[in-house]
C-alpha cells in the first residue's frame, strides 16, 4: 500500500515533526512497506466484533477523596528548559 510524499508531509504536520527532506524520502518508502504488512487486518469481516481497548475486565474501584500533597513549584520547574517566575517560558506564539 503506497503512501504519497504529500501524505507523509501531512502526517508529519499532525505529529508536529519537522522532518528533513531525506527523512521524508525514507519514511515514504518505509511506511509504505509497513502499511502493506499491517493491511492484512483488513481481510477480516469484524462488523460483529467489539473492539478491545484494555485486556482486563476491570470494575471501578472507589478511593476516598483525600487531599494529598502535590509537587512543589520548584520540583515542577526542576527540569524546565526555561522558567520565568511561576511560568514556563517559550518562544513567541503565533508569529
Amino acid at each position, binding site marked *: 500500500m503506497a503512501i504519497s510524499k504529500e501524505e507523509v508531509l501531512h502526517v508529519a504536520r499532525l505529529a508536529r515533526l519537522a522532518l*528533513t527532506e531525506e527523512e521524508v524520502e525514507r519514511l515514504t518508502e518505509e511506511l509504505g512497506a*509497513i*502499511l502493506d504488512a499491517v493491511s492484512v*487486518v483488513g481481510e477480516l469481516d469484524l462488523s460483529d466484533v467489539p473492539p478491545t481497548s484494555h485486556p482486563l475486565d476491570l470494575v471501578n474501584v472507589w478511593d476516598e477523596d483525600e487531599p494529598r500533597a502535590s509537587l512543589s513549584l520548584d520540583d515542577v520547574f526542576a527540569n524546565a528548559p526555561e522558567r520565568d517566575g511561576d511560568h514556563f517560558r517559550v518562544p513567541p506564539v*503565533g508569529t
Partner: protein
Amino acid sequence: MIDTLRLTAEDARGLLERREISAAELHGAYVEAIAERDGELQCYLRTCEEPSGEGIPIALKDVISTKGIETTAGSRILSGYTPVFDATVAARVKAAGLSVLGKTNTDEFAMGSSTENSAWGPSRNPWDPVRVPGGSGGGTAAAVSAGLAPWGLGSDTGGSIKQPSALCGNVGLRPTYGTVSRYGVVAFASSLDQVGPVAKTVRDVALLYAIISGRDPLDSTTAELPEAVALPEGDSLAGVRLAVPKQVADLDAIEPGVRAAFESALETARELGAEVGECDLPLSYRYGMPCYYLVAPAEASSNLARYDGVRYGLRSVAGSYDEMVEKTRDEGFGAEPKRRIMLGTYALSAGYYDAFYGQAQRVRTLLVREHRDALEGFDAIVTPTSPTVAFPIGDKAADPLAMYACDLLTIPSCLAGLPGLSIPCGLSEGLPVGLQLIGPQFGENGLFRVGHALEQALEFDIVPERLR
C-alpha cells in the same frame, strides 16, 4: 570473594541474613564487576557507586523514573531529565530494602528488539559481544547474565522482557497486564506496557514479582492479585498439561537449532510427568504482528505527544513556539520513534481510523478469545520465545520489518494481556534458546511452578561460556 556471575538473589539474601557479608560489600562487588566488564558490554547508562539500601542490589531499566537519578528511556529528547519522584515500582523495590545499582540501556522509548535503537549506542550480548542482547530491555538482561546485577526490572510491550531474557539465557516474566503499576514508567503503549522481573532463576523472578505487584492507587489500571505469590518448589510436572500451538510446526522463521532445543525441552517436560498436547492459534500468528504494529504505534503517537520542549527534556532553539516544538521533536527523537509516531498518527487520522486502528482493536478481541479457547484444558501454552538466537549487531538495523519479526512469538499473548515466562532451555550454535510459557490471566504461580520444575531438570548453565 563473591562470584557475581553465579550468585542468585536468593543466595545473596541468605548471605545478608546470616551476616556473612554486608550490603555495602555486596553492592561493591557488583560495582567492581561493572567496572571490569561493562566497558565492553554497555549494559548501564548510569551506575550508583554507593548502596541506597540494606538489601540485595538491583538494576532498573531506564524507562523507570528514579528520583534524583537521570532517566532518559534511551532517548536524546530526555537527556538530562532527572525525575523529582519515584515510579511506584522503584518506590516498592526501595521500600523492600533493595539497593539500586544503576539504570540499564534500552531501545529508545522501549521500541526495538536489539537495543540498537538506543540514542546512547547498543548493549552487547555477554555470550558473544558482536551480537545483540535483544531488546528493548537488553541492558537489564545482559547485566544479569554477565554478573553485573543479581536481578533487574524490565518493561514489556510486545516482548521486551521475554525476548532479551531468551537471547541472554536468563529468566524473564511479563506479568498479567494490570498486576504491576505503570505509574512513573515512561509510557510507550499504555494498554500493553507492563513492568516485570529478570533474574537468574524462576524463584528469584517470583520473589521480585511479589515485591512489585499489586494494586496501586496511582495507576487506575492495576488490580490486586487474586492469590499471593507462591515461591515454586518441587521437580514434578505430574498432572500438568502443556499445549504447543499447531502453527509452531509450520513457522519457517524458527531456526532449526531453536526448534531442536525447544523439542528437547518438551521431551524433558514429558519425562517430568507433563502431558504435552496441541492447541490452535491460527489468527494469532497471522494477525498478531499486524495488529500490534497498529495498536502500539497509535498509542505511542499519543503518549509521545508530551515531548514538546516546554516543561522538561530537550529544547531546540527556534524563533517561534511552533518551530521550537517541531524542531525539538525532530532533533530529539531517533529514527524508530519517528517511524512509530508517523505510523500511529496515520492509523489514527481522519479517514483511516476505522480501517486501521479500529480494525486492529477488533482483531485484538479475536486474539483474546482465541487464547482463552486455546488454554481451555491446559495449564500453559509453550513455544520458543524467540524464533532465532542472538543475531549480530547491524544485521537487522536497516530493515524495520525484519526487526519487528523478532517478536512474532511474544506479541500475540501480550495483546491478549496474558502473562508469559521465558526460561533458558538449551543452546544453539553456542547461544541461549528461550522457552516461553504462557498462562491464563493471573496465572503467574502456575508458570512459576512449571518453569521451576523444568529449570531444575534442564540444568542450563546461566553463566556465558566465555565468562566461566
